[in-house]
């Protein structure tokens, strides 16, 4: 059963409204990115116009919406950091059932990196008393998986990453969680709210946005804050360039028509005694 229910009611500490913040990112469609050879033996990317919600973040939105549906007095905010078009993902998350969108708008397309993103979200979240902050375990483009833990550290919150199960603990301010560790083993923890969790795919099945909600989202204004107005964060890490991964095996490419390739493959399977 996806989502959790607050069996013991909404924790009193949050005065009737428990606020959840979900951090999401807009990313280019990874499958459609074309890698080509750039200058000096480096790789270059052709990123087509398709941008979408980071898949890992869909699980965080879904989990927050499940909590909201199961519990009275829960309010779900979704925040994103990115250039102007990034607000599109906020519309999508409202289509899934979140209440409000916050766009920390960067002046350019340049990815500011996890340290800056975490610092800016922390600045926004600090005075707003969120009981729970949810993130995806990483983004599909940068693949750093750092914003969650960095944000927790900046807000001095207890946190856990790679969470695969979540429910309320016997203590109403506590969450009972399972996080994935190596070898198919799960660590069982109890964590006191306010807390931050990064969620693993598979914790729930993210829903499709509903049309009526999407239409409503189109009319709704997001809270937009320019990151220029926030505390500047230096670039702690530079990405100097991209390279094509080394081949670890022979990577012999079969050529010809599909039919010819199938025949070659069957012959290889026969020759290697797999058939």
């Amino acid at each position, binding site marked *: 059963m996806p989502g959790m229910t607050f069996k013991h009611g909404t924790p009193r500490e949050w005065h009737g409204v428990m606020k959840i913040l979900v951090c999401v990112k807009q990313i280019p469609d*990874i499958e459609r990115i*074309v890698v080509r050879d750039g200058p000096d033996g480096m790789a270059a990317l052709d990123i087509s116009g398709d941008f979408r919600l980071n898949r890992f973040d869909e699980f965080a939105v879904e989990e927050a919406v499940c909590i909201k549906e199961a519990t009275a007095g829960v309010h779900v905010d979704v925040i994103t950091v990115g250039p102007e078009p990034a607000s599109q993902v906020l519309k999508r998350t409202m289509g899934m059932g979140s209440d409000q969108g916050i766009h920390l708008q960067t002046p350019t397309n340049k990815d500011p990196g996890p340290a800056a993103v975490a610092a800016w979200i922390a600045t926004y979240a600090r005075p707003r008393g969120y009981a729970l902050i949810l993130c995806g375990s990483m983004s599909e483009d940068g693949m750093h998986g750092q*914003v969650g833990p960095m944000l927790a550290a900046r807000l001095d919150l207890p*946190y856990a990453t790679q969470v695969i199960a979540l429910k309320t603990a016997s203590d109403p301010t506590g969450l009972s969680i399972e996080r994935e560790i190596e070898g198919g*083993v799960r660590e069982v923890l109890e964590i006191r709210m306010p807390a931050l969790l990064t969620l693993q795919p598979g914790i729930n099945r993210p829903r499709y946005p509903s049309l009526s909600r999407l239409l409503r989202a189109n009319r709704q204004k997001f809270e937009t804050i320019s990151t220029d107005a926030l505390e500047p964060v230096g670039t702690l890490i530079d990405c*100097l360039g991209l390279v094509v991964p080394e081949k670890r095996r022979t990577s*012999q490419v079969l050529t010809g028509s599909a039919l010819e390739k199938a025949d070659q493959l069957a012959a290889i399977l026969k020759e290697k005694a797999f058939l």
Partner: protein
Amino acid sequence: MPDSVDIMVIGACTNGRVHPETYELLAFGRRLQALGSGTVGVWIWGEDVGAAAREIARRGGVQVTAVECSGLSHYAGEPYGKVLAEEIAAVRPAFVCAAHTSEGWEWAPAVAARIGAGCICNVDGLTEFQGRLCFQKDVYGGKVKGLFSPNTATTIISLQLGLFKFTPADRSSQGPVIHKEATYRSGRTRYLGTRQAAADTSDITTAPILVAVGNGIGNQENISLAHRLARCLPKAAVAGTRIICDRGWLGYERQVGVSGAIVTPALYIACGISGASQHVMGMRGAGYVIAINTDPRAPIFNEADICIVEDITRFIPLIEDACARIVNSIDQGSDEK
């Protein structure tokens, strides 16, 4: 007076047993040292860490700091990070080397944020580019790797395991052991134990041939194609990537990858799998790898012996036919004898 340390290796031990990753990180630390300069030191935290520290000092020929930390019988991200942040801030090394595990990936970014350090996670290589030391890691689903160079006085690196080899030090070069104490307050996180996820992966860990499917299979009905291909090959089983299992198209007992099963079949046929590192780490030990994907730059092709750029939903039926032709010709051949 202990030497100041520029490259701080974060080791680990449980009940006095040194985790093997400690030595791998030390090997990485030595590589970093060779590319730049400075001294390497290993740190371990926990209860009764003295014996483990002496073992690392002897085998590694390196200075080891054993931080006795009462209450730290089990790792938890927030309190562990606080203890490490305090020590790292005091040592002020250029680099901190951690293992890219469920623990390292959890605490490294948080500690970096606490002390204003840079952080690069899931590093799988070291290189020099434009005169700068760069750490290499997967980006964009592993289609390319980024070269990341730090701008900060201290940078925390989490290293993908299984890539750097450790050679034990000479007997004569035993390093010193420094003992310290720290206070560990578990506070807001309570460790309640571990449990094995229910999945029994023996089907895919013992099969000599695996037909593995990824996102390129398109829809749930097409999973039957994988079963059809598996039936062409003796003793083949069907496996899948995480996304396939998360969708419920295959059970989790069939998931290959870091969070599923590590498999070593004689033949691995990757069908519509892009080849993210979390998956690849689960199948790298396969004997022979055939990859089929529509994207010629899919990273799975770097891990394959045979690469076929085709849509698996159309190509699998062709393989079935081709295999049938070969099997029939063998049968006819043996009839004639």
